[in-house]
């Protein structure tokens, strides 16, 4: 049997692609290397606060653990910047349930599924991708389709084989370590906490994402190879020695440990080829500073599914035709990603004392605007009061068109 879409990867990107293609009338099969989709979780499990809002993504209700109405960011000397709304703007979810529910939804809508299918090669016909080769319960199987969608994550086989992304430069990767803990001392379970600083988390941050009153994901992501020790060692340092970290984690018990890798070097130069599309982490559709990617994967996947069916119906699945997907998603997020890449480079250069000074004058709203690539409206230069290093930083932000 030949499908319209062969989707590799049953994460939020792949299943969103599937759901939108099915709604547009296409036939779909989803393959995943895992036999248990969504496990192990490799994620902080926060959705809604980075990129697309809750209104733009269909979060499976059963996966919602805790509504989030804001955050507290702590600078290196623990100066807080607080953002708190009255309504929930995001959720901490259970990714196991989240991914499984979306996968089930896609299959209920008509997608076929192969779990435990490890894609090892692409099939090319007349220079066009026309299917995949997978190892499946000890056998080698071929699955053919008009369009192959690589939604197979940070370590995407489809991206590598097609040459769209052969490998990731270490500076464009964050690696993470995370405990899920019970008995965590959380002041306000509706606020996420972030901790910044070179000694805390070089080119990254520590997070405390509450899953309930006393339960949280306590994790860290750092620039791969940028620290003096492993991500795990930085995380343990936070839990044991950081003045706030040890308060938050006093008496807390880890009930799960997990690791992850996050591609935050921005999107690949190209995410389409003849008969091929990339979605989500495989495409690099990840916020370069927060590392958030679920919402982007879902929205971009929806675009990909719709465009793929349109192209198949039009009888043209060439790179040129499929590039409509590339222009549509870049129209939405391309500018934001490139600005955030520049901001990431700036933050990487910023010394801890400047971050501390910045935390004193920024509001939570300012941070939300900044990380969404919007210009901060307030007059910050007056607030900087002749602090030369801070003024220099503000000038850099102005060059990035992030301050008026």
């Amino acid at each position, binding site marked *: 049997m030949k499908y319209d879409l062969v989707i590799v990867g049953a994460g939020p990107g792949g299943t969103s692609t599937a759901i939108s293609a099915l709604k547009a009338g296409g036939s779909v099969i989803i393959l995943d290397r*895992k036999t248990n989709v969504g496990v192990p979780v*490799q994620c902080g499990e926060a959705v809604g606060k980075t990129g697309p809002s809750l209104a733009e993504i269909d979060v499976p209700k059963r996966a919602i653990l805790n509504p989030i109405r804001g955050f507290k960011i702590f600078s290196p000397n623990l100066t807080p910047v607080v953002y708190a709304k009255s309504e929930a703007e995001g959720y901490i979810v259970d990714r196991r349930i989240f991914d499984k529910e979306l996968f089930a939804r896609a299959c209920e809508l008509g997608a076929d599924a192969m779990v435990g299918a490890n894609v090892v090669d692409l099939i090319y016909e007349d220079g066009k991708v026309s299917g995949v080769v997978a190892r499946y319960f000890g056998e080698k199987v071929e699955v053919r389709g008009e369009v192959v969608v690589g939604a197979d994550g940070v370590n995407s086989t489809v991206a590598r084989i097609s040459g769209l992304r052969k490998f*990731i430069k*270490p500076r464009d*990767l964050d690696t993470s370590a995370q405990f899920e803990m019970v008995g965590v001392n959380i002041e306000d379970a509706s606020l996420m906490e972030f901790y910044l600083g070179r000694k805390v988390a070089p080119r990254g941050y520590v997070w405390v994402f509450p899953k309930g009153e006393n339960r949280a994901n306590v994790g860290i992501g750092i620039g791969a190879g940028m620290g003096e020790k492993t991500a795990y060692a930085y995380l343990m340092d936070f839990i044991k020695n950081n003045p706030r970290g040890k308060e938050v984690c006093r008496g807390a018990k880890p009930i799960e440990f997990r690791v*992850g890798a996050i591609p935050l070097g921005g999107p690949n130069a190209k995410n389409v080829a003849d008969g091929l599309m990339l979605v989500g982490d495989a495409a690099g559709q990840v916020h370069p500073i927060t590392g958030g990617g679920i919402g982007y994967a879902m929205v971009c996947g929806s675009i990909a599914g719709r465009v793929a069916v349109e192209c198949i119906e039009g009888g043209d699945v060439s790179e040129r035709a499929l590039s409509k997907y590339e222009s549509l998603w870049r129209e939405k997020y391309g500018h934001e990603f490139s600005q955030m890449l520049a901001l990431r480079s700036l933050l990487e250069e910023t010394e801890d004392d400047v971050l501390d000074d910045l935390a004193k004058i920024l509001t939570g709203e300012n941070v939300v605007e900044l990380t969404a690539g919007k210009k901060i409206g307030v007059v910050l230069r007056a607030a900087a009061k002749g602090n030369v290093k801070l003024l220099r930083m503000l000038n850099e932000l102005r060059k990035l068109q992030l301050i008026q």
Partner: protein
Amino acid sequence: MRVNEELCGVCSGCACVCPRGAISVSERFVVVDHKLCNNCGVCASVCPVGAITVGDE
């Protein structure tokens, strides 16, 4: 390079950055193609748990 399987959590970071595509990741473990690996060590530098050693023991 060698992977200490007791520490490895299969995040796939090492495979992502390997410039030679020498590392592949299955559902439960990491597989190294020693014919392709030239012990450059970039994988070890990104490992979040320090599970990778490079060079002679």
